[in-house]
Structure formats: C-alpha cells, structure tokens
C-alpha cells in the first residue's frame, strides 16, 4: 500500500493559515473536555493486582513466621542474583529451617520470577512502590524487614492475609496439574484455565470447559 498525502496548498489556504487555525481549534476544544492529568501526590491511580513492587515475605498465621521452606528455587532463578538464603537442618526431623533470607532491593530487576516459582507462595512482590530513601542500607531487606513489609502492606491497604490474591500466586490460565500443591489456591473463575475469556458478541465472555476440550 503506497502512502498518499496532499501537501500542496491552494492560494486561499495559504494566506488564511487554515491548517494552523485547525490545530489551534483542536487545542481550544480540548480545553473544555475532561482533564486526564492525575495530580500525583494528592491523587493516586489504583494499581492492578500483580503489580511488581516492594518485596515481602508472607507471614504464616499459624506460626507467625515466614512460610518459606528454603527450597532455594527463588535464589536459583533470580536473574540478578539478589536473593541470599541460608538454612540449617533440624536435628530431629531433618527438615530445613530458614536462618537468613535477604533481598538486595537495589539489585532486583522486578521480573517476578521469584514469586512465580515459589511453591508455597512465601515471597510476593506487593503493590507498594513508594519506598525511596537517602541511603543504601534500608534497601537490604533481611527476613524481619521483609515480614514487616508484609504487615505494613496489609495494614496500609486494609487487607487480611486470606483475602489478598496476587496473579503470580497462581498464574492466570495455567492448568492445575502444572502447579505445585501450594499454588493450587482458590482464585476468581476468570483466572482459571476453565474460565478463560474470549471475545464473543462484542464483549469478553468466559468460555466453558467443554469448548476448550473441543478446540484441542
């Protein structure tokens, strides 16, 4: 397809500055339409669930400690290697016990791989993005700090732990059999493979499980 344009102007167009008046008219028209600007510190845009922000370790309500089982998956998948984990063995049960969990937030590139591979949903990137500081030290999150981050996040957003859902806890559209048991949590129907949406009759609609199997 060859592009077409007409840039030659007639005599009247040339002396009447028509194209400039049109442009000015557009600006004038927009002066009376609704403003799209958000006055940031006073107004805030609501974030979507799953925004990759400040790190937190989810507190296990039954023990009061982190859920982490020290499987090292997050530390080994991290592209920038900002996660440090140390653990020891319990003498009786030989289970791993977390002794140190550190995230260097300044090294982190916020790809969200750690929360996606975590088999027990222990680590999460919360929807919190305002945490600037003047020194480097506050960005080295140790385990206590990460748990604190979680408490602060819940408090700030008036959430309870059970109600908080993040799309990385159970990625949308992934079938159950591909997920470890810790990630098979209850999510809205739209997030599951069975309830995935397609475009039909001019709006997005959930497709029934039958249709998926027929497509395959």
């Amino acid at each position, binding site marked *: 397809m060859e592009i077409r344009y007409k840039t030659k102007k007639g005599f009247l167009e040339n002396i009447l500055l028509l194209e400039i008046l049109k442009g000015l008219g557009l600006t004038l028209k927009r002066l009376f339409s609704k403003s799209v600007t958000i006055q940031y510190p006073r107004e805030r845009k609501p974030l979507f669930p799953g925004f990759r922000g400040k790190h937190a370790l989810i507190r296990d309500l039954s023990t009061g400690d982190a859920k982490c089982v020290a499987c090292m998956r997050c530390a080994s*998948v991290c592209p920038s290697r900002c996660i440090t984990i140390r653990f020891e063995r319990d003498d009786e049960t030989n289970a791993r016990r977390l002794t140190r969990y550190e995230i260097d937030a300044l090294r982190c590139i916020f790809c969200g791989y750690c929360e996606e591979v975590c088999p027990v949903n222990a680590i999460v990137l919360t929807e919190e993005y305002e945490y600037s500081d003047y020194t480097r030290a506050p960005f080295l999150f140790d385990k206590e700090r990460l748990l604190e981050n979680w408490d602060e996040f819940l408090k700030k957003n008036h959430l309870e732990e059970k109600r908080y859902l993040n799309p990385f806890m159970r990625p949308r559209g992934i079938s159950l059999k591909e997920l470890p048991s810790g990630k098979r949590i209850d999510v809205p129907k739209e997030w599951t493979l069975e309830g995935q949406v397609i475009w039909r009759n001019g709006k997005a609609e959930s497709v029934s499980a039958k249709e998926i199997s027929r497509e395959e």
Partner: protein
Amino acid sequence: MENMDNNQRPFEPYEIQMGPQHPATHGVLKLDLELDGETVIGCKPTVGFLHRGVEKLSENLTYAQALPLTDRLDYIASMANNVVYSNAVETLLGIEVPERAKFIRTMVMEMARITGHLLWLATHALDIGAMTVFLYCFREREQLLDLFEEVCGARLTTTYTCIGGVRQDVTGHFLETLYKFTEEFPSRVREYETLIDQNRIWLKRTQGVGIVSKEDAVSLGLTGPSLRASGVDYDVRKHLPFDAYSEVEFEVPIGKKGDVYDRYRCRMEELLQSNRIIKQCIEKLPPGPIRADDSPDLVMPFSKKCVTADATFKSGVIKLVEDRKHYMEGDVYVSGECPKGELGFYFVSDGKGRPYRMHIRSPSYIHIGALPFLCKGQMVADVIAIIGSLDVVLGECDR
C-alpha cells in the same frame, strides 16, 4: 576582511560535538559534526555510552533468565523484544506455541508498536518544535501502559512472555478496555494529523530533508519504517510471518521519496494498521492453553519431559533424561519486526541450558550507522530531524 577576500570563506571548517548530553539525541548519542558554516560536511557518531554487556551477560544466564534483559534493549516497546527473543529460543528448543498464546503475543507486540510509535511521534515533534503533540501522544500511550500493567504487572519492563507461551492469561477487563481503545484510536490519530500533518513549519522542516533512495536504503541496512519510507516493500511480518501474523489482515505502508516526511507518514499509517491487527486479534482470540506442554521450567532450563526426580525422598536429586535432546546444537537466527525495524537474535548453542554466544541484531545500531550518509550536506538543525526520523533508541544500540 583581507583574509575573506582571499578564499571567499569567512570560516575554516570546524568541528562541534553534539551530545552525549543533548536532549534531541534521544539518549546518549554523541555526534562529532564537521561543519562548513552551517552545513554538515562530516558526521561521526560515537556510541557505547549505555553499554551494559547484555550479550555477554546472557552467556552466564539461562535462556529464561536472560529474558528480562531484553526488556532493557528497546525500553519503550519492551513487549516486542520479549516476543522476538522467545521466538528465537523456541526455535532452538523446537517448541510449538499454543494458538492462544500466539494471538496474545501478536496483540501485545502491536500494542508495543503503538506505544513505540507514539513516543517516537511525541519526541520527534518536540525536537522539531511542536510541543502540543507530545501531550496528546502521551495521553494514549498512558492507556496502553496501564493495560501492560494489568496483564503482566509492570508498565515498561514487562517480561511478559515465557519460553513456550506467555506468563499470564489476559482478563476480560483487559480485552474490553483494549477493544474500546482500538475503537477510539483512529480518531486520536486524526487529532495528531490535524496538529502537524499540514502545518507549514512541519512541512518545511521535514520535506526534502534526509532523502534516502531505494538502493541506498538497502545497502545501508535500514529496516522497518525507515526502509519502507524509501519505497522498499519489506516487512518481516508479511514476508516471514511469525506468531499469528499470517492469520490477520493488514497492509504494509510504503513511502515514495524517502525523506523525513515520508518516514513520518509511514509510521502514522502503521499506527492505524497496528490498531487493525489488535482488533482482529481480540476478535479471533481462541480458547486453549497459554503455555506449551513441553515449555521449560523457569528454574530448570529444560522442559519438564526431560527431567525425572530420583525415587529416594531424602536425596531430592533431579536427573535429566538422557535420550531426549534438550536444546539443539548449532546456530539459529530468528528475527521479528519491532517498532524500530528488524530485531534479530542469533544464538550459538552447544546444547546446554545457556547460550554459548548471543548476538543481537539491533535496528538502532544499524540506523545510527546510516547517519553520516544521511547528514552529509544538510543543515545542523536538520540533523535533529534526521535522528528523530530514524527513531533510534540507545538502549538497543549499545545494549
């Protein structure tokens, strides 16, 4: 005065340095301009101020871990880089992506093209002196960035695709918002055109500036809209279709003269064509899985079928199945049409989970190589217009 009479020139040719801290070089590009009066007689670009060693870094990372690095190449349309990179690795692994993932990828790639072209139009117009377009373009770009945030959790550094599909399915709200966007976007493009298309200052700054003929454009290695504006009908999406591009209808805009104005017109037409592709993708989006069955695990760089867990509980050793080929050995080059031009990934693989060598054919680097040819004989002020019209991003050029 005596001196002037002798050689008819008030000044000897002299050199000025433009950049790297110059607002109109779109990043940290440095140009050593050799000037005769106000005419450019020589131009030497210096690049590398934003070099982070992406190619070398990726040799120590698995293929999945190197994917977030591709966000940082062309950071204003990172979805497109993700898609091309995943396509390249999938070729190496021999994975066929599910149909739904293909359509989602095509959709986000065209969204990335619109965000890229909108930022190009905004800054290009700002360089030339049209302030208002900047504000209008960012209004629409913001809507698309919000959609990126909804679908993958980040606005710029998306890391949306994974090897073998995409990381998250789309939601109903996403599709509905995007469909609404596609319906009103053509009227927005008309708004930009009202502001600058016929504007006499715009025409004088762009028409007849930086002309590249068909033959020169090919021999300089230009790709993307910069090549098509010179009249060469070449688009990777049409001629070597990847993802769902073979299943959607669109046209490739071709220019006539190859000047700055033609490049501008080509990109404006592409905005509308991208909009058309997104609309078709939404309407045709099939149900089904979003990741291939044998897509590799993020932690283990091999597909799940290659791995067996040892039977003993305590040892927890994970073994690789020997008889299955994990990654193909040899070289692979896969390219895709990014907003800037043809982005290609070249892997040398030794069959392990990491690239032995990765090379990125980035369009911006090659476009900057064409600058000396384009700038010769132009005015200093036109150099700004030419850099803008080539749409270079230094993150991708220096990588």
